[in-house]
């Protein structure tokens, strides 16, 4: 019995996204599809212990869920015939259920690409896109997602209900966008996945475990996107970027404190993730055209390839940030570019650029700008100026892990000899 449950659980976790995607296409409704999947899963738990686990559990669940949909549509039809006046709200739901059910279920097509594009449709709010993508295509439950985003479960559930209602009522299509719209819509999907990753990566509180899970989910979604659209270089670039960043997860924190890239124990880096990330990046660059995820992945790759901090190729990193700034101008990218220039030996130029950014509106309250400035001054042994910059960064920093780090650094520059 326990084995059967485990088998069903694992099918559910692994295949539910794919089954759900097809059920939504067939039924034209997220709610009906979810309901049918739940019922089919319950049937599996009831039937498998007696009859044994089927050879192809996913196809079994798909077939069962499809039957549930047909049953539900028939019940609906009867209801409509009794109350003709309700027809207007149910006609869509019943229409597609007449197609060959059982035969199609065994080799059902992969509808997850449509599902991703619908979940990440720009007509939905960004929060809704994130929640829906995680819920429909990820393996996380509503409570798990709520916990990861530090939200009450009811808030997240409400967000999902509203998003599904908008999809239904405004008729957001369940389709892969046409070629002329693909680039912008794919960029929206990539942005959602990377946001999920960053939410997990910026581990700010004690829920670290769930947040690691969020990174894992983002990587899984990135893999799925590569599998579904393998000839899009930025899909590969995004997955490479996430793998390379995630490879440092075990080295980033020590005793609850942030460890900078420079101070990290590089033997803790996940070699297999690095190797995979480098391979993907290479494939992406061969495929082209180059895009922001590939450039960021290339920067992460240069860090990953340096076995000691001193071996970091800062000249190359600065060049990549410059390219990134040209492609996607942003003050944060300019800040990173300035730091990379300073680290590559052009210290004065880097500092000058940071000071220019500090005078602008976009970053003058951004704590990492002052932290970066302080760090460069520390390297120049201009300790008093460094201390001032650390103090300014401390005034603006929000999360306690960063505050602890900045305080430690401030102590170091106040007593440089120690």
């Amino acid at each position, binding site marked *: 019995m326990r084995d059967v449950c485990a088998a069903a659980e694992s099918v559910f976790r692994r295949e539910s996204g794919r089954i759900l995607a097809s059920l939504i296409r067939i039924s034209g409704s997220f709610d009906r599809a979810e309901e049918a999947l739940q019922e089919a899963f319950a049937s599996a738990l009831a039937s498998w212990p007696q009859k044994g686990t089927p050879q192809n559990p996913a196809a079994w669940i798909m077939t069962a869920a499809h039957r549930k949909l047909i049953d539900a549509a028939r019940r609906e039809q009867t209801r409509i015939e009794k109350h003709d*006046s*309700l027809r*207007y709200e149910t006609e869509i739901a019943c229409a597609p259920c007449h197609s060959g059910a059982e035969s199609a279920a065994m080799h059902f097509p992969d509808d997850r690409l449509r599902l991703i594009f619908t979940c990440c449709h720009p007509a939905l709010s960004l929060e809704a896109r994130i929640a829906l993508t995680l819920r429909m295509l990820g393996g996380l439950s509503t409570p798990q997602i709520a916990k990861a985003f530090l939200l009450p479960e009811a808030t997240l559930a409400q967000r999902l209900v509203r998003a599904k209602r908008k999809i239904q009522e*405004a*008729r957001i*299509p369940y*389709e892969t*966008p046409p070629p002329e719209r693909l680039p912008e819509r794919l960029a929206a999907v990539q942005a959602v996945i990377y946001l999920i990753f960053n939410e997990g990566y910026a581990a700010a509180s004690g829920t670290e475990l769930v947040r690691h899970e969020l990174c894992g989910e983002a990587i899984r979604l990135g893999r799925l996107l590569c599998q579904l659209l393998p000839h899009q270089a930025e899909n590969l670039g995004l997955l490479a970027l996430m793998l390379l960043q995630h490879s440092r997860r075990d080295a980033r924190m020590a005793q609850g404190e942030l460890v900078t890239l420079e101070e990290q124990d590089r033997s803790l880096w996940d070699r297999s993730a690095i190797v995979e990330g480098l391979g993907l990046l290479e494939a992406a660059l061969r495929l082209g055209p180059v895009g922001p995820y590939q450039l960021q992945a290339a920067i992460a790759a240069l860090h990953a390839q340096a076995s000691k901090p001193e071996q970091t190729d800062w000249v190359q990193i600065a060049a990549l940030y410059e390219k990134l700034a040209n492609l996607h101008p942003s003050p944060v990218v300019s800040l990173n570019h300035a730091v990379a220039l300073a680290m590559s030996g052009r210290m004065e130029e880097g500092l000058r650029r940071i000071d220019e950014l500090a005078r602008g509106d976009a970053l003058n309250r951004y704590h990492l700008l002052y932290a970066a400035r302080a760090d460069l001054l520390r390297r120049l042994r201009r300790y008093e100026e460094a201390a001032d910059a650390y103090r300014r960064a401390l005034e603006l920093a929000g999360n306690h892990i960063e505050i602890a780090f900045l305080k430690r650094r401030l102590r170091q520059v106040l007593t440089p000899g120690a």
Partner: protein
Amino acid sequence: MRYMMLIYSAESREALAPEESLKLRAAHRKAMREAASKGVLRAAEPLAPSSTATTVRVLDGNVLVTDGPFAETKEQLAGYYIIECDNLDHAIDWASRIPASCKGGEGCVEIRPLPGVPALSQAESNAGSFER
């Protein structure tokens, strides 16, 4: 599904320059002709400026009339289209062809589906609530 495209644009005090006004009208006519030739245009009309608006509220049976639009915002409802589309993506395509930047300011188009008037339920028709 019919979608209503509500055109919101900033109203400026001065009238539009004649050549700009002509250009704008031509752009609307082009959008309408395109939609009409595809057989999807259901309606399209401009609204008189919000300075002509009157707002009516009924409070405890008293009719309360006030001058001006429902909300005083920089952008005001300036006109609408009703277009028949298969789905929201098609509606977005049409909306992007509607000139929204009326009278100089920036504008935008809000898309709202028109689900139709719900049919009378059993309870409602028994009560005859609509006829009374």
